[in-house]
């Protein structure tokens, strides 16, 4: 359980993170979404005990990240944004070094190396020098480093940046699998990433938290009404209009006559009118050519929340 209370972090006069609060429960995969410069990395650096907050408090399993720093660090695995490694070491040496400082027992070391090599797809690469590896393999070494000690919490800063599409899919699957047992916090500025991997999303913009919820909640919460697109054969616009007037929950209706009649229906937020609408049309003996519900995508929510300038949150 991670608790962030009123976290503020300043770099000199620049406020990088402003009064952010959230909690993450055990076993959750939390996506930290925001444009570049939003304050994602800064927040993660505080969570991982790299630097203290200017104000506010962060506790992990009840322990303050700065009072009980060593104990907190033991429970966390961290993949920094730049994934810095030591190019002159080979993969095995590097992971052994990290495991040593992580306090992995000598007797368990071999098993742990085999396990992370298998999970991260590094089996063939253990004897290779890190500097010779491709970006994708280096990213896996970074992930292996973060999980060598079986931490309860993984903090991954842009884990898929710089990878090609196939590698991205692999790493996402890996994160999903890890998330079955562990708490994972990952940051990204790429939207499909959170949709593909996360249970919950925090959207952060200019250092402020602007949304917190499941991808589904956010899409329903932030764009109100639903749109239904309809195409019907065997009627006229006026007939369709009066027929649909009997369906409760319709807010707005536009019809266009043509060879077939098309209609654009705006329905109340959170309602699903596909069934009553289709029943109404079928009862009249008309034919539905198309019935399509358009939902606000997370992408629209994201754009809406992160493009609002100071005016919105002032």
């Amino acid at each position, binding site marked *: 359980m991670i608790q962030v209370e009123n976290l503020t972090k300043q770099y000199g006069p620049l406020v990088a993170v402003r009064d952010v609060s959230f909690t993450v429960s055990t076993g959750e995969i939390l996506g930290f979404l925001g444009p570049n410069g939003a304050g994602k990395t800064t927040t993660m650096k505080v969570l991982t005990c790299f630097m203290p907050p200017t104000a506010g408090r962060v506790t992990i399993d009840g322990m303050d990240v700065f009072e009980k720093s060593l104990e907190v660090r033991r429970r966390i695995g961290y993949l920094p944004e730049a994934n810095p490694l030591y190019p002159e070491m080979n993969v095995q040496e590097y992971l052994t070094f990290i495991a040593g400082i992580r306090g992995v027992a000598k007797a368990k070391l071999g098993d742990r190396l085999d396990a992370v090599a298998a999970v991260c797809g590094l089996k063939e690469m253990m004897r290779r020098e890190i500097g010779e590896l491709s970006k994708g393999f280096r990213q896996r070494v970074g992930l292996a*480093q973060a999980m060598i000690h079986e931490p309860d919490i993984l903090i991954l800063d842009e884990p898929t940046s710089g990878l090609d599409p196939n590698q991205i899919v692999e790493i996402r699957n890996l994160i999903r699998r890890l998330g079955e047992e562990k708490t994972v916090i990952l940051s990204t500025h790429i939207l499909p990433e959170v949709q593909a991997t996360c249970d919950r999303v925090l959207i952060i913009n200019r250092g402020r938290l602007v949304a917190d919820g499941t991808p589904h909640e956010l899409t329903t919460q932030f764009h109100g009404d639903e749109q239904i697109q309809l195409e019907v054969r065997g009627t006229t616009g006026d007939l369709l209009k009066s027929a649909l007037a009997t369906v409760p929950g319709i807010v707005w209706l536009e019809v266009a006559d043509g060879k077939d009649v098309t209609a654009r229906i705006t329905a109340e937020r959170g309602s699903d009118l596909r069934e009553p609408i289709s029943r109404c049309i079928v009862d009249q003996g008309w034919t539905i050519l198309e019935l399509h519900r358009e939902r606000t995508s997370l992408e629209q929510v994201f754009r809406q929340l992160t493009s609002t300038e100071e005016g919105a949150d002032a």
Partner: protein
Amino acid sequence: MRNAWLLCQKELRSYFNSPVAYIVLTVFLLTTGFFFTSSLFLYDQATMRTLFSLVPVIFLFFVPAITMRLLAEEKRSGSIEVLVTLPTRDWEIIVGKFLAAWGLVIVAVLLTLFYVLSLSMIGDLDGGETFAGYLGLVLLGGAYAAIGTWSSSLTRNQIVAFIISMAIIAALYMVDDLLPILPMSLAPVLQFLSTSYHYENISRGVIDTRDLIYYASLIFLMLYLAHHALASRKWK
């Protein structure tokens, strides 16, 4: 302390995995070897004295070349972020890195025992004097390695770290040469500050605890300052 030892091993492995260690050791041996053989034929004496007066000057370049990357490179590449978020204390990182650099300096110094060996075969070598000279070199090397560790903690640029440590080393080695131009009352202070004064004391074979304490405090002070620089990220 176990972590400091693990870090020291990692650092030594990095030295020997990359060409750094081999290049600096080779250059060190070539320069000392050149001066050793030329002075041997010049004075025709079985003594290590020329070497002992020469190595401090070679150290001026040699030690900063070894220490410049210690923390500067970690900061440049960002790997310091991984290091300090591991469950290890900041001082363990500093001590581990310092020990690795000092270790490499000691390796270089010990390689010159080859000259001692060849001298002892051709003439009568004063064992006590030689031992004292080596002790002086090892302590001087330790002080320089600590200065280099601190310099490297101040910047993310290895060249800058090299220049800072060389400047400090040169200043501390030469402060007592300022004696003639400064008031006499300052003489004891400057002498006490000077690394060369204590080095010469030890090399002469008089091993005084004051000289040992001087080196220990200098090393301690430098590592304290390096720790301070590393911990500065925690200032609010």
